[in-house]
């Protein structure tokens, strides 16, 4: 299972990377979204996919799965949501003012 999930993570990372290297800003942002999916899975997988129980003390008995990675991922999810919201708006504001969503056209010159 872990091996399979890690392979999946690899595919997600590769796809995300390819998207991020694109010229279109929306593809880039989607790429970052996929990246965050991948890393959340990674944290969970490496945190140990034990066959333990749901970490609810009233629900089940020990052994529990490792709850710490879950808490970390929760934090990471919220943060990546915040960042995604911000960059989406940034992207369209940049489009409004610069008139393009093509990152090649958004290069700017070094010495202007």
């Amino acid at each position: 299972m872990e091996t399979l999930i890690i392979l999946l993570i690899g595919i997600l990372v590769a796809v995300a990377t390819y998207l991020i290297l694109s010229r279109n800003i929306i593809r880039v942002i989607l790429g970052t979204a996929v990246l965050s999916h991948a890393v959340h899975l990674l944290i969970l997988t490496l945190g140990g996919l034990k066959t333990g129980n749901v970490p609810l003390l009233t629900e089940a008995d020990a052994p529990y799965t490792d709850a710490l990675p879950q808490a970390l991922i929760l934090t990471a999810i919220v943060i990546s949501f915040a960042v995604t919201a911000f960059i989406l708006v940034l992207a369209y504001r940049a489009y409004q003012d610069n008139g393009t969503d093509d990152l090649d056209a958004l290069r700017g010159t070094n010495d202007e």
Partner: protein
Amino acid sequence: MKINDVILRTVTRIVVFIILTFGVYLFLSGHNTPGGGFIGGLVLASAIVLLYLSNDIEKVQKSLPLDFKLVAASGVLLATGTGLGSLLFGVPFMSQTFAYFDLPVFGKTELTTVTIFEAGVALAVVGVVVTIILSISEDE
């Protein structure tokens, strides 16, 4: 022909209340079952988003005249403020405390400072999500 959203709006009236109730429940019960301030806040925000989806902004704001970024700010203040409260009691920052009380009507009840903290979290989440969605929607 103009769009008639009567079906959507009517159903939404019911659904929103279900979601709101569920949101508050998630927020309050998070200490022992899945949920908590974040998820509760997100669900509450979804309910408000649903209102915006099925009505228009003007209408919703007439019924719900809140400045959501100030809601968010209040939430952050509440969340950080509970941490700061520890300073007054001479315990380490962010010390949460809990106790069981026998309250009239409620019986044995657990009261914890985490709940105040989580309320702040929930408020902040609601405020932020709605602020973002409203800001984008109102933009030309």
